[in-house]
């Protein structure tokens, strides 16, 4: 066997990201004494450089390299760009939060960048090994991020929970991988697909493999009944980390779902579709109902995230390119909306007050009408009320489900949308109708955060009025395979 040097060009963004991240990791130890924000700015600059690299070599056709382990296509590029975009927002909000809560440190940003690298690898994974590699890079970074606040017991508890359950999920996923490998003799997705299509693999082993893989994915996505970690981890983590956990990794999770199910085993649709239907319906129902009783906004958003995962899976269960494109649109919209939601909590939080209880939002309209209005946009967008972009995200996935012939699922979906509207309305109610516990104007929000949170929220409105280009982008990237 000859060793062929693989083409490195498609992976240049990842390599540059790795190099710069490693550099920042080392440099941070020297910088942090003298220049507090050097690491932060270097992080943001790295992301911008990476975004530029992706854009300048935007994939117009599928390129596979590293012996079939790494794929670069427009699907990957678009998701990576949105991961970068969302991460830029995350780091911007986090900086202020870490300063306020007095545990500002360079590690947060370095770990965050490693997480982004892991997500990139996941998005471009084309065989089991790469996928596992990406998943672990991301997960390890996140375990450490949650535990960053060493003195807070609930953060440590969250980190422990996330670590144990995450490891379990990864184990299950790997078990599924090994079964598929055993049955097909290959680890590369298209080859597996071909062998399954040809009917050369043992159907029983394949079925077991699919079940394990879907369970592993459901863990990572936080879909019911594998969601139990999400509320505790979201709640216990510092808000900056919750912001990170709840947004960008979801995009990567969707990417691996797509790579595994749509590219790796289209021939097993009848096996995994039923599983996805169960996960999707349960997630929507549980997410909608349990969120109602939450008093903590982070916890509520965790359950809301579970419900959104259910909606995302609607697009996946349609099991056709249009459905995947709908799901892709949904996850991008969700990530942006979640950044705005958690960003709002950060913008309002103060030293000693996390501002993460719904009661904290009471009377916000009288204390800061502008931010109350922005939060109103975020809540209604999450609830799927037009004219905000969340509405179109829901409409499109539901449309894909109808098209696939599952009208009953569409009906379940809209009913859960009505139920979940109730808890989003609770937040609006608190802001607009209730009297604040403490009166007087709210402590001034830093200009940077004010702008950032306004920008993201208004983007939800503007995208809602003009959703066309984002929709086209998603549909084209899946169609361009």
């Amino acid at each position, binding site marked *: 066997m000859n060793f062929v040097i693989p083409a490195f060009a498609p992976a240049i963004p990842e390599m540059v990201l790795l190099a710069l991240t490693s550099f920042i990791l080392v440099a941070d130890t020297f910088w942090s004494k003298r220049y507090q924000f050097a690491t932060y700015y270097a992080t943001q600059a790295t992301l911008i450089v990476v975004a530029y690299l992706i854009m300048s070599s935007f994939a117009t056709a599928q390129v596979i390299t590293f012996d079939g382990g790494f794929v670069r296509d427009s699907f990957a590029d678009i998701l990576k760009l949105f991961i970068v975009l969302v991460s830029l927002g995350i780091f911007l909000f986090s900086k202020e939060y870490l300063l306020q809560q007095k545990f500002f440190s360079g590690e947060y940003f370095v770990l965050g960048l490693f997480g982004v690298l892991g997500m990139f690898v996941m998005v471009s994974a084309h065989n089991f090994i790469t996928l596992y590699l990406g998943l672990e890079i991301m997960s390890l970074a996140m375990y450490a991020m949650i535990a960053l606040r060493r003195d807070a017991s609930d953060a440590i508890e969250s980190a422990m929970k996330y670590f144990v359950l995450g490891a379990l999920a990864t184990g299950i996923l790997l078990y599924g991988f090994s079964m598929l490998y055993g049955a097909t003799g290959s680890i590369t997705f298209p080859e597996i697909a071909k062998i399954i299509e040809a009917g050369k693999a043992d159907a029983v082993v394949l079925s077991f493999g699919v079940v394990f893989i879907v369970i592993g994915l459901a863990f990572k996505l936080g879909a019911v009944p594998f969601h139990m970690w999400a509320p505790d981890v979201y709640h216990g983590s510092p808000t900056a980390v919750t912001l990170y956990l709840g947004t960008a990794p979801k995009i990567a999770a969707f990417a691996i779902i797509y790579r595994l199910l749509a590219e790796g085993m289209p021939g097993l649709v009848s096996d995994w579709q039923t599983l996805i239907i169960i996960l999707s319906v349960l997630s929507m129902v549980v997410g909608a109902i349990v969120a109602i009783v939450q008093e903590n906004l982070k916890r509520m958003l965790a359950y809301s995230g579970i419900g959104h995962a259910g909606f995302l899976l609607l697009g996946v269960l349609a099991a056709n390119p249009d459905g995947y494109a709908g799901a892709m649109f949904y996850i991008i919209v969700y990530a942006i909306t979640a950044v705005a939601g958690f960003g709002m909590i950060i913008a309002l939080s103060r030293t000693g007050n996390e501002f993460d209880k719904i009661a904290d939002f009471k009377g916000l309209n009288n204390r800061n009408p502008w931010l109350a209005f922005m939060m109103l946009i975020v809540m209604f967008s999450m609830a799927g*009320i037009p004219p905000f972009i969340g509405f179109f995200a829901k409409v499109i996935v539901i*449309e894909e489900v109808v098209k696939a012939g599952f009208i009953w699922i*569409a*009906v379940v979906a*809209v009913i859960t949308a009505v139920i979940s*509207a109730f808890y989003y*309305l609770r937040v609006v*109610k608190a802001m607009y109708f209730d009297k604040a516990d403490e009166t007087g104007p709210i402590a001034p929000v830093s200009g940077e955060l004010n702008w950032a949170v306004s920008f993201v929220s208004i983007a939800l409105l503007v995208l809602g009025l003009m959703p*066309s280009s984002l929709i086209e982008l998603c*549909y084209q990237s899946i169609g361009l395979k």
Partner: protein
Amino acid sequence: MLSSYPILSTLIWLPIIGGLLVLFAGRNNDTVAKWLSLIVAFATFVLSLPLWTGFDTTTAAMQFEEKISWIPAFNIYYHLGVDGLSMPLVLLTTFTQVLVIASAWDVIKERVEQYMGAFLIMGGMMTGVFVALDSILFYVFWEALLIPMFIVIGKWGGPRRVYATLKFFLYTFFGSVFMLVSFLYMYYQSGSFSILDMHTMQLGMTAQTLIFLAFLLAFAVKIPMFPVHTWLPDAHVEAPTAGSVVLAAIMLKMGGYGFVRFSLPITPDASMQLDWLVILLSLIAIVYIGIVALVQSDMKKLVAYSSISHMGFVTLGMFVLYDILASTGSLQGAQLGMEGAMVQMISHGFISGAMFLAIGVLYDRMHTREISAYSGVVNKMPWFVMFAVLFAMANVGLPGTSGFVGEFMVILSAFKANIWFGTIAALTLIIGAAYTLWMVKRVFFGPVTNENVEQLQDLNKREFAIMATLAVAVVALGVFPAPLMEVMHTSVGHLLVQATTSKL
């Protein structure tokens, strides 16, 4: 006739942008907020008049059309247009808008700019509902409307406002999501979200039945029909005056409009099969809700129930057409019923708006709506009582007022369909007179028995102007309804053909 500027877009976006402007410009200056709102509302009304003057009454086709591609991937268009069914409703909306802004002038003290802004934005969206010709665009306006109304009731409403506004929001949202699924299903079948394409597409009986029921749920909640009416009394009682006016005068009409724009033309066969259901619910609303209104002790609640009862006429007039066709063999009588329903919608817009404004006038002075708290108001507020009694008479359906025209036409056509429908519907003349006149007697007449009434001041100039405008509208429509009927005649005829052409 085409106008030189996109008149419908102007009517939608001028108030919305104006409303946003009010939110910012009026933040610390109530006077600016008020005047700016009034100017925007009035300008919108003036700009809506060309719809009337330039309207071609000889065609049932859409007029003043605008069509721009909005989301090409899903074949969604920003498509607007009006016909004889929607044009009067648009004018009703812009007209009511001015009154609503004026009515809140001295009354609202807290966050005036948000209040005014919310009403302007709502006004633009309501126009959008009536003129949208793409089902997704329609749905966007239909749902988006809930947001400002939710805030208005919840923020400026009465003591149980939070309960009422949540109930309002969730009821309406629940009703409409099934309509959305129907739209998606039809898009999947025909590849188009255009309402006009949906009018012509073929649909099997099962699909039609399910779609009809989904539409029924959406529109029945909005109108509202028995038994999904329970949100309305709560919302009305708790809403501030202007909120009640907008709810009663316009939002309820959106349900009726939905039936003529969606249910009848899109699912004619299912409508024919299930018309008994709508007729039954309408008759229950007319009689049972009328009796419920009789025992109310809160004026606003009484008028709210009276609204439900009157809207029963609208749905009755719309759905008796199949029975008329069966018993007389021609659509002549059905035309009468349908036009009666449409006239009733416009007339009820004026009358219910006027009634709520009148109650608002009393409430602003006495801060109670309990009938028992009043007596002998006429001694202190003769001008006010003159108007209020006129509106009450119109509510009863006295000939010469607009209330008579629509009700009379509907009752007449109900008799043609089935003598029992007519008889039951006609009962309302007794029940309606009973609850309205009894309230009038208790509130306005009799001796002055408490000192709060003793101190009442008569209408000020602003209130007088609002009342007088509405009084003119009510009487004019009652004496001379012909122009309104002429506008809708061709479109109603077209609708009847659509509603009786099988799509199987």
